[in-house]
């Protein structure tokens, strides 16, 4: 795997801040950020359901494997030098249900969280 394309919601403050933070982190795998459902995203992935990507973070590797929602978040962590170990830890069968619940809760409330922190 050479790179991961991250389809993020450019209209949410929290996501933009996460994007800035990610840009500064040392990486094991290149991360490419593309706003979700944008013309660029549609061009890159012609067969993808783009309405779907608005609902939660979507990460696609250079071979076309799609990781949606919590899986996408885990893949982003996995790409970071300092957090790869955490991605394995959070993906263990014991922790995965909690990871999914927490990540989904953050995603679904991202506009409220953005408003609260700004």
């Amino acid at each position, binding site marked *: *795997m050479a790179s991961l394309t991250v389809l993020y919601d450019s209209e949410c403050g929290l996501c933009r801040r996460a994007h800035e933070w990610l840009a500064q982190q040392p990486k*094991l795998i290149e991360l490419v950020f593309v706003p979700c459902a944008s013309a660029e995203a549609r*061009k*890159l*992935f*012609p*067969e*993808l359901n783009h309405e779907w990507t608005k609902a939660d973070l979507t990460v*696609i*590797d*250079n*071979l*076309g*494997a*799609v*990781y*949606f929602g919590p*899986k996408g978040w*885990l*893949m982003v*962590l*996995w790409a970071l030098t300092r957090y*790869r*170990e955490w*991605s*394995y830890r*959070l*993906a263990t069968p014991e922790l*995965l249900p909690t990871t999914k619940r927490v990540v989904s809760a953050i995603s679904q409330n991202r506009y409220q969280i953005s408003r609260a922190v700004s």
Partner: protein
Amino acid sequence: MTIEITTYLIYLATSIALTIWVARTLHKNGRVFLVDVFHGNEALADSVNHLLVVGFYLINFGYVSMALKLGYDIADAKEGIEALSVKVGMVLIVLGVMHFFNLFVFSRMRRRKAVHDGRPPIAPDSFTAVKQEV
């Protein structure tokens, strides 16, 4: 030979024998871990293994030597054996702690290696076509 000297000599002989036994066990069984950590580079693994064992010997012999002095008089063989059992028991505990510390170091090294040639933590949801940039 007084009873104190006999106790000291038995203490030294037992502690040294135990240390050598544990160090050899580590040396023999730790090698396969290290070869794995260093991607089959046996020369490097052997070298690190040897250095670890040297450190192990230094700490243990250092402890054995510092803990030699009894600090009180022994009247008979019974007290000698009692003093000996406390001393040797402490050496065994120190060896045990060192042994687990060594195992911890080995497993840490292995985990770190696993992190760097790792696969993705999770399977993808689906696959989609990717438009190749021309």
